[in-house]
Structures are given as C-alpha cells and as structure tokens.
C-alpha cells in the first residue's frame, strides 16, 4: 500500500492542531493563581499549545514545499489485525479477567497469522506448544518469581 507522504503529514499535523486547541481551551478553564504565585497551572500548557500550533502550521508550509513522495506500507492488514488483536486481548483481560487463557489465544492467533507456511496439524501443534511455553514463562517469572498478580 502506498500513501502520499504529504497527505499523511497534513493529516497528522491536523490531529496535533486539534490536540493543541483542546489543550488550550482546557487550560483556560483551570483555576486562577493562588496567592504568591506568579504564573499558574494554565501558563505552561497555554504557551505550549500556542507554540505547538505555530510549529504545526510551519511544518504544513515546509511540507508543501517538499517534493511529493510515497511511503510504502507493506502488509498493512497485518499491522491493523495485530492492533485489533492486542486490543481484544486487553479488553478480554480487563472485562473477563482471564489473563492466561487470553494470552494463550492471542499468541496462538498471532503465530498462526504471521507464519506463512502451509496450514497443517503439525503447524498448529508447534504454534500451540510455543504459545504454551511463552505463557508458562510469564507465569513462572512474573507470577511465581516476581509475585505479580494478573
């Protein structure tokens, strides 16, 4: 997949500009100075937001002057699926509390998804074994040794 460097940059800069504006208005609602203070909690955020806005506009113009080029994103669907799977894993852990089962399923799914070899029982068996080993490693090191409760 090819995406325009310039368009992608404009989109990211717009995102940053929105963040700067939101932060500026949020900072404006912060409580006023307490006695003895010269600048309050709103000063630095407001200054930062203004400077961020100016730099985003400057970057916008420097990008316009650049030659157009395209950035290649190989296998974007893999990256998207990975992020979705990681999110589902965290959601399952947060809502259902099934950390080890979710971990095993996440790892197995990722191994199967990334492994380009032909599907077979042997492949499934190997990937399940590796997933189990990793989960066991996490259990032994973190839960048993470091007493971390998942």
């Amino acid at each position, binding site marked *: 997949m090819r995406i325009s*460097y310039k368009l*992608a940059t404009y989109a*990211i800069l717009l995102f*940053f500009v929105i*963040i*700067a504006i939101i*932060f500026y208005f*949020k*900072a404006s609602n*912060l*409580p006023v100075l*307490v006695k*003895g*203070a*010269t*600048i*309050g*909690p709103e*000063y*630095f*955020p407001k200054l*930062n*937001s203004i*400077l*961020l806005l100016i*730099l*985003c506009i*400057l*970057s916008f113009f*420097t990008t316009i002057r650049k030659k157009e080029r395209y*950035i290649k*994103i*190989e*296998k974007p669907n*893999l*990256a998207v699926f*990975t*992020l979705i799977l*990681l*999110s589902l894993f*965290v959601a399952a*852990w*947060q809502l259902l509390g099934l950390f080890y089962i979710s*971990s095993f399923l*996440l*790892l197995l799914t*990722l*191994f199967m998804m*990334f*492994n*380009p*070899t032909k599907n077979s029982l042997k492949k499934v068996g190997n990937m399940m074994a*590796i997933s189990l080993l*990793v989960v066991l490693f996490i259990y032994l090191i*973190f839960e048993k*040794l*470091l007493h*971390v*409760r*998942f």
Partner: protein
Amino acid sequence: MNVFSFDFTTLLSFDVLFAVVFGTLFGIFIGVLPGVGSTIGIVLLLPLTYSMSPIMSIIMLMALYNGGSYGGSISSIILGVPGTPGATATAIDGYPLAKKGFPGKALGYSLTASTIGGIFGALCLMFLTLTLSTVTRNFRDPEFFLLGLLGLVCVASLSSKDVVKSSVSIFMGLQFSLVGMDIFTGAKRFTFGNINLLDGFTLVSLLIGLFAVSEALNMLEGDLSKRHVTEKKRLKTSISWEEFKSVVKDIFKSSVIGTSIGILPGMGGSPASWFSLTEAQRSSKTPEKFGTGHPNGIAAPEAANNACVGGSMVPLLTLGIPGSPAAAVIMGALMIHGVQMGPMLMDTETELIFGIFWGFLFAVISMYIFGRYLTTLFARMLTLPQYIMVPIVAFIALIGTYVPRLNIFDLWVAIIVGGIAYILRKLDFSLPSFVLAFILGPIMERGLRRSLMISRGSWSIFVTRPYCIFIIVLIVLLIIAMVFSKAKTRKAIKEKIDAE
C-alpha cells in the same frame, strides 16, 4: 568518600554477579536479533528490575545496553544485516571481510574495539560525572529550566532530518508531560475525568508504545519466514598483537568521538559509529580499501558505538537528562526505585553511583569474555524466524507495561501510542525528541514557576546568574550552528543540482 573507597565486595555478591552476567548475555542476544536493539531489550527487562535492588537493576540494564552494542555487530558481520542501528556502519567492512573467509577475524576486531571503547566510555563516565557534579550541585531552579531548554534544542537539531517535525515532536512530548495533577496547586490538568490520568502518563507505557509496539508493527513488513542461516565454523574471535596494533589508534580516536557524541542528548550509537568511520577513512593511508574488509572500518565504528554507552549516562547522572532513548529507559528504572534524579544525585546516592561505575566496568569486561567464547552460540539465535519473534516481543512488552502500576489502562496507552508512532516514524517525526521532552517537561515547568516565584515575576533571574548565562550562550551557539549547517546543506544541494 571517593570512588576508590567503594566497597568492592558488593560487586562480588550473587545479586550483582547475576545482574552483570544476565544483563550482558541478554544484551548480546538482543543485539544479535536484527531490528530489536538495546532500547527494546532494556524495556523488556524493565519489569524484572522492580523486585531487585537499585544497584542490581541499573547494573543489569547497563550491562544489557553495553552487550547489545556489541551484539549488533555479530549479525552485521556474519549476515550483512545490522542487529542494531549502531552496527550499520560495521557491516560496510565487517561483512566483506567475513565473505573473504575471515568472519572470526572480523568479530575479533569488533569485540576488541567494543571492549576498549566500552572501558573508555566507563572511565569517562566516572571522571566526567565526578567532575561535573561539583559544578552541577550549585544548579538551582533557573539552571534546571535552561538545561531542559538546552536539552530540547540539542535533540531538535541533532536527532532528525526534519528539524521542524522534531520540534513538533518535542512540543507534543511536552504536552503529554503536562497531563495529571499540578504539583503546585493540585489542579487536575487534561485528565478528562479519567482517574487513571491523575498521575499523568507513565514513562514506561509511552516508551513501550513508542519503541516496542511500533517496532513490532514495523517488523511485520519484512519477510516473516526469514531465518538467517549461518556458517558456524570459523567464528572464533581472536586477533594477533600485530593486528591489534594496526587498529589501536583508530580505536582510541573513535572512543573519544563515541563518548563525546553519547553525551549529547538525542544522538546515540548510530551517529557515533558513522562519524568515527568517516574519520577513520579520512585519516587512513589506504582510504580506498574501506568497504572491502578494512579492519579499521570495523574497529572504529564498534569502539565508538560502545564508548557512546558510557557517554550517554553522563548527562543522566549529573543533570537528570538522558543522553539516548536507552538511557531514558534506565532513568525510568531509577525513578521506579525512588531515586531522585538531578544534580544532587551524587550527594544523595553516592554508593549507588559508585556501584554503577564499577559495575559497568565489570560488565564491559564480562562482555569481552562472553563474546570471546560464546559468539557461535549467539550466532545461532539468528535462526529464530520473525513470525515467532514479533509476537513474543510485542506480548512481553505489553506485560512490561502492566507491571509497574498493575493498571490495564497503561496497556491501552501503549497500544494506541504504538499504533500512532508506527505512522509517525514513516513521516520523519522524531520519537527520541518526544521522549526527552516528556521527561524534561515537568523539570522545566517546575524550574520556571519556582524561579519566577523567587524573583517575584522578574525574568531577569535567567540572565543574572553566571551558570544561566553560560547555558544561554550554549543554546544560542547551538541554534547558530544548526542554522549554518542547514544553510550549508541547502547550498550543497543547490550546487549539485546546478552541476547536473
């Protein structure tokens, strides 16, 4: 107390020995694997340090950092694929020498140079930290604010090919650092009603998102079935005394270059190795032989790469400003152990700092021993396919995000930031600038507000103190150098176009 009165029996305790051995082995292992790098290695090991003592955890992470800098050269030399960014320059002569039938010789030059560079960096760390701390303990809030500004100007000008985008990254990092409860007034800033943001974003979740998750996504673009097969014979790493003499001058020159560059925030091993390679070629009697397997083309970048490790810790231990992303993660580890970073660190944690000095020196020597006898074993790691490595790296990184606060919210932060960082990297935004700004933001704001409180609102406090004036001069000189450098580059490009 002086550095030689340190209780050296501490280094012989099981804890420290384990930290040195495990950190070095893991570091070399991580360095060997292309695309992973020391920063991710340190991030992965960070959760293990929570139950360790501060000295054990920092020595382990620094041993990893140092080991990773050598480990990257193993895949550079054997496969021509750099294991770490700092080992890219090594591949230029390392791989051709290996292809000529001398992989062991090439690794010998690399290991020897890495060890000497590492020792030089460790000694500089010791000397410079002790010297500079006598100056920095006089620093107060105005100096802290200006030092933060110096750090940001440094990283903006040095760390990315697009200075404006580096600057945008810096202000985004500052923006993120302002989230949470204001320490002066208790006001909740930008928490959007989310109780998890009262203490702000955690450094660990941002680091893991920015470096580990985004790198894992990046690795998906390559050939996932790739399995590097190596010839395990002739990997014995040794060079003769005559061979050593032929590279020793460049090793010492490169060690100086590497340490100096390491001290500058935002640089790291990669620019250090390239500068030293360029200098070695320039000063060589046979510059035309570089790129064909010239020993100095291996020794110079490797010495610089490892010297950079010690150099990057100097601003961290003297000022609380990390010299590289890996040093930033080590700083995270120190903060997790309740160590207060800043110029007073030498006074408040003298035992710890001396332990770090000697432990690091010990780690460099252990890197030589393990590298000498175990390189063949590490080379075997290259047979691990990417489709196994990527999920494991991503998963363990996420677990590492959870461990500091046992809060699942941090995992969401790491995933979202990782996804965005994956795109930002492709668009030339600077992730190290973001991280440094995130770390310096609270220091700068605190320094600014306290300074103005002391001076009752007068900004003259920043131009009437001698150290402040010195730092302002440095900032101005850096900006001038940056402007000249850009103008020079633009002129060179214009001349090239006109010539064509």
